[in-house]
């Protein structure tokens, strides 16, 4: 009987210790999860801020691209610097394609 009683006490002691440990782990776990969630929210907030900054920059770059690609700018600056001109169909002649034209073969194989 004495033996049985002491074994019950040991089980009860282990259960109590386990319960207290679980409680403490649970509390700390909750605190940890809460702080992780907060950290995640901070990170998301920062990322949203970064996203907004990039979007802002993108808009500025798009505007700059649109400004630089204006035909007026291209005609004036590129025309003077690189000699680009607007297409002029009068300066183009049309040459009729010959149906029979084939590349000249230097090989003697077919001869």
């Amino acid at each position, binding site marked *: 009987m004495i033996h049985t009683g002491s074994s019950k006490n040991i089980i009860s002691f282990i259960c109590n210790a386990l319960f207290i440990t679980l409680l403490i782990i649970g509390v700390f776990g909750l605190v940890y999860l809460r702080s992780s969630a*907060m950290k995640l*929210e*901070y990170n*998301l*907030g920062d*990322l*949203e*801020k970064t996203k*907004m900054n990039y*979007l*802002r920059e993108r*808009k*500025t770059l*798009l*505007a*700059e691209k*649109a*400004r630089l*690609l*204006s*035909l*007026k700018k291209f*005609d004036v600056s590129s025309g003077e610097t690189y000699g680009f001109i*607007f*297409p*002029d*169909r*009068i*300066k*183009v*002649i*049309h*040459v*009729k*394609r010959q149906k029979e034209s084939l590349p000249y073969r230097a090989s003697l194989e077919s001869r």
Partner: protein
Amino acid sequence: MNKKRAIILSTVVIFSFFAVYLRLIDLMILNHERLLTEAKRRHIKVEDIQVRRGIIFDRRGRELALNLELESLYCDPEKLDLGNDGVIRLASVMAKEPEVILSKIPDRGRFVWVERKLEPDTVERIKGLNIKGLGFIPEAKRFYPKGELASHILGFVGIDNQALEGVELKYNRYLKTTGGKVFFGRDAGGRILSSGVEIEAKGNNIVLTIDEGLQYLVEKEIDTAMLKWKASAATAIMMDPFTGEILALANRPAYDPNSAGSVRDSDRRNRAITDCYEPGSTFKIVIGVASLEEKVVKPGTLIDVSKGYIQVGGKTIRDVHKYGILTFKEVIQKSSNVGSIATGMRLGKDRMYKYAKLLGIGEKTDIDLLGEVSGWIRPPEKWSSTSIGAIPIGQEVAVTPLQMLRAYSAVANGGFLVRPHVVSEIISPDGQIIASFRDKKMNRIISAKTAETFKDILKSVVEEGGTGRSASVDGNEVAGKTGTAQIINPETKRYSKEKYVSSFVGFVPADNPRLAMIVVIYEPKGQIYGGVVAAPVFKNIANQALSYLDIPMDDDTYQATLLVSK
């Protein structure tokens, strides 16, 4: 002793708990609302959703109006601490006088704008000054990357992005959108947590019928003409004669919509639709079309104009030259006033008025731009004894350049009156087409045969012996008509001998028209005739536009595919 201590301890504990309960009642019941509001104020940040206007594109998807993200500087006067030289440093960064900045900051209040929509580098430099009481708020600035280009079509917005002119105003309800509020959580240190929602609301995008390339060509050429002829103003419109799509529309003087607030009102006027002028000989389309449709004349009908003048209601109207006997086709080709009036008299004023109205004279074209005027033609019962001699040659009537272009487009497209428009599609931010202005039904106003016959007559105007020879284009036939009209002097109420309006209106290629165009030059100096002043502008624009659009020459063989530069 122990019992006494236990009683004291119990009493202290009980009272302590009681005090805590009382405080809880105070916090949770008595001051609940006030404290809840305070907590929300500290932990929840409310911001306006940033509203952004939609983008305006040309017909090939090139941006003509978009938004820049800038920051505006505000001041909290109660917290402002400029120190000894703060205002001087701020003024130097902003390139303004210190007095100007100080004049914007009142002694009291919590918010006042110091400067709106600053450049990013200026913002960084101001932030570097670390002046307490200054802050920044992000704002969108409408930006027109092409500057003056198509300014009269696009219009502009004000400092608060409120639409003020042009497509911006006409289509404001599509371009703008509603905002609202967005809630952010923040901690005790003020750090913002994720909101999880989009904090920007975008308006719908608009696709114009305008082609930036054609618009540029038109603007470049009328700039050249303005310089050459020292003209007071100029207008040119290019339109697809079959659909009414405006491909280019330009006026001079013009303005840069990025700084629209600092330009004169007259520069902002869209003369193509708001200004009326007496069309002169370009109005002979009414006589031509009406008399052919009513079978009053045929192209070969002979008309004696040998006297070189005609008297109507006691007024003598002369031709520039004496021509002898002309066919009706030659009357139009040489722009004979005498021949046109004689034909007009045979036609009669009722039928002349009827066809003027059918061709859209005195009626708004219903273009999707604001400020259009209807022009002016009196009903026959109000004509004077000289009107039958004036109206056939484009006097006593007032038209807009767009009305004349639409009338000639009816000849180009086989007899239909189109509705000019500058917007082709409205597209939602996620790419769905909300509205499309394509495939609208058109009304037939003249028979295809009449249109074809008059087209042949208009072709002769640009051929040898015609008044519009200098509008001819290499490789394609042009059909059109010159116009030279005197301007009424507002002081004398008579036609001025110095001020004229020179114009040319036509279409190309004549047999398969792709472009209808009008060029109007106001008050040219040195020369006055439409065939000398306006027709070469038409030619220059048409030559480049046909190349730009890769429209084949009339004699091109489609089998020839190899292109070689000369």
